[in-house]
């Protein structure tokens, strides 16, 4: 691992990696706990109410209180649950989320494992989690969980494809599949300017991969009352919640690095690790704020609408983006042309995606049938 620490410390590489991974796990655990605090406060402000205020100043100790409560809760298991699937489901979701941090470069020097294909690694690891959903859904011996599990698996697999295609577009432009190199590529312009269509597709697909509203059908509270994890309680449920937020962090970081320029843009590499970390955190927070904003504003999509959106809308547009990238590379056009063409593609996506809601003839508005007063008023208006 490339450690920034004082060069006098001489430790073998594997020890440094383990220390780094443990540090990241601890920091991330606290980080996602406070992501829940952040979410509750922000969404509450959007809903005309205060968030947690009682536990600690501004409710800052609320995540700790929640964690303590969940840890001491009774761990209920259904008697007829499948032993292997039920026990291991949470781990199957929990572990890949944390392993993904191995390839995430927080600053230009902080990286546990420099991989030449780190983007491929990240996408592959984040795609492993659907097995855990299936295991939880089947192993719980509960119809709601089964429905949730099936829906989750379908959704996760479907949205992998536009996500990967959007990333392929990025790889084409930057000629590298290493997140570190992609960040270095963006020293003058962030990739969002060159690939707006890819950015939109990534944004949508990442919300679906993390299973946040409006794509939270597997855990839809109002229909399947908790969905996949309806039979899990206490620590297991908290592990699932934690994983959901860690996934959100991973995708927010990925988006910040790949599209917004990470710690490289706009100030370059020489500003020191403090400012680089600050830039990373700020850009990641923008993404997370956007996820929260969308959560508070949109209803949930129905599962068939969700699937048709992925297959019939996102994938063709992702292929369009790849096609445009190909043209740009082959004909060696200036970046502006690519940016303009991609922006046009993004506008077309926005238009068509929502045009498809109104199929056929435009909807007739309500008829208003007037009622006229026939009796005499008690007192006429002055």
């Amino acid at each position: 691992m490339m450690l920034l620490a004082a060069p006098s410390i001489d430790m073998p590489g594997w020890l440094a990696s383990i220390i780094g991974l443990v540090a990241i796990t601890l920091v991330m655990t606290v980080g996602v706990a406070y992501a829940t605090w952040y979410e509750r406060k922000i969404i509450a402000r959007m809903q005309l109410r205060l968030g947690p205020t009682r536990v600690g100043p501004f409710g800052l100790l609320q995540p700790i209180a929640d964690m303590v409560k969940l840890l001491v809760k009774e761990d209920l298991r259904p008697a007829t649950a499948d032993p292997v699937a039920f026990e291991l489901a949470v781990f199957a979701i929990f572990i890949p989320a944390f392993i993904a941090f191995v390839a995430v470069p927080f600053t230009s020097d902080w990286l546990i494992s420099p991989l030449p294909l780190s983007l491929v690694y990240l996408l592959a690891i984040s795609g492993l989690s659907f097995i855990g959903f299936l295991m939880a859904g089947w192993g719980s011996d509960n119809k709601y969980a089964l429905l949730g599990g099936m829906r989750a698996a379908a959704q996760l697999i479907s949205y992998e494809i536009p996500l990967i295609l959007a990333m392929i577009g990025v790889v084409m432009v930057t000629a590298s599949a290493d997140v570190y190199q992609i960040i270095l590529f963006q020293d003058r312009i962030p990739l969002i300017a060159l690939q707006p269509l890819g950015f939109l597709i990534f944004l949508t697909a990442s919300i679906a991969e993390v299973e946040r509203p409006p794509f939270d059908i597997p855990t839809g509270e109002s229909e399947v009352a908790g969905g996949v994890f309806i039979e899990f309680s206490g620590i297991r449920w908290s592990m699932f919640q934690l994983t959901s937020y860690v996934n959100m962090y991973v995708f927010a970081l990925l988006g910040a690095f790949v599209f917004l320029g990470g710690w490289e843009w706009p100030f370059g590499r020489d500003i020191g690790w403090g400012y680089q970390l600050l830039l990373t955190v700020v850009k990641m927070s923008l993404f997370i704020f956007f996820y929260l904003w969308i959560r508070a504003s949109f209803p949930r999509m129905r599962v068939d609408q969700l699937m048709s959106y992925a297959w019939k809308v996102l994938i063709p547009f992702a292929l369009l983006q790849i096609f445009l990238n190909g043209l740009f590379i082959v004909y060696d056009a200036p970046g502006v042309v690519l940016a303009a063409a991609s922006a046009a593609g993004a506008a077309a996506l926005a238009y068509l995606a929502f045009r498809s809601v109104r199929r056929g003839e435009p909807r007739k508005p309500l008829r208003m049938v007037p009622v006229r007063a026939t009796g005499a008023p008690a007192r006429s208006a002055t």
Partner: protein
Amino acid sequence: MLGILRSMGVTAKVMLTRKPVTIQYPEVHREIPNRDRAFPILIWDEEKDEPFCTGCHACERACPVECMTVVMKDNPRHATGESKRRKIIDEFWIDYGRCMRCNICVEVCNFEAIGMNNTWAGHELSRYDRSQLVFDLDQLLSQSKAGKVEPGLRA
């Protein structure tokens, strides 16, 4: 596309420009109006130093849920000439667990002896056991004797 942007605009506008509507109970209590009907209490006659209530059973008969029990007695202070009331209330129980706060007892009372508590003390009556919600005469008179209540709606 515009529809979802409008939704996001509303939530952003609310977040940035509106104050939350939360009232931090129990540190802050909302103002309750004069006519609030919390639970019935008996009124104490300051001048004559006895309850207004004479135990005439009018409210007990009128109550839709039969939550009151009334016992009257001869007023010992009538014989001595201190009071004009021949009969006076002896025992009075209201089961607050049954009361539906409909105000009918207040309307039918001939002596304006019962009223609805319109303070927060009338609302904050949680008990651990339902039997503790049956209030007897002293408890019913306590708020008015202490001068804390001026009921709003009188018959």
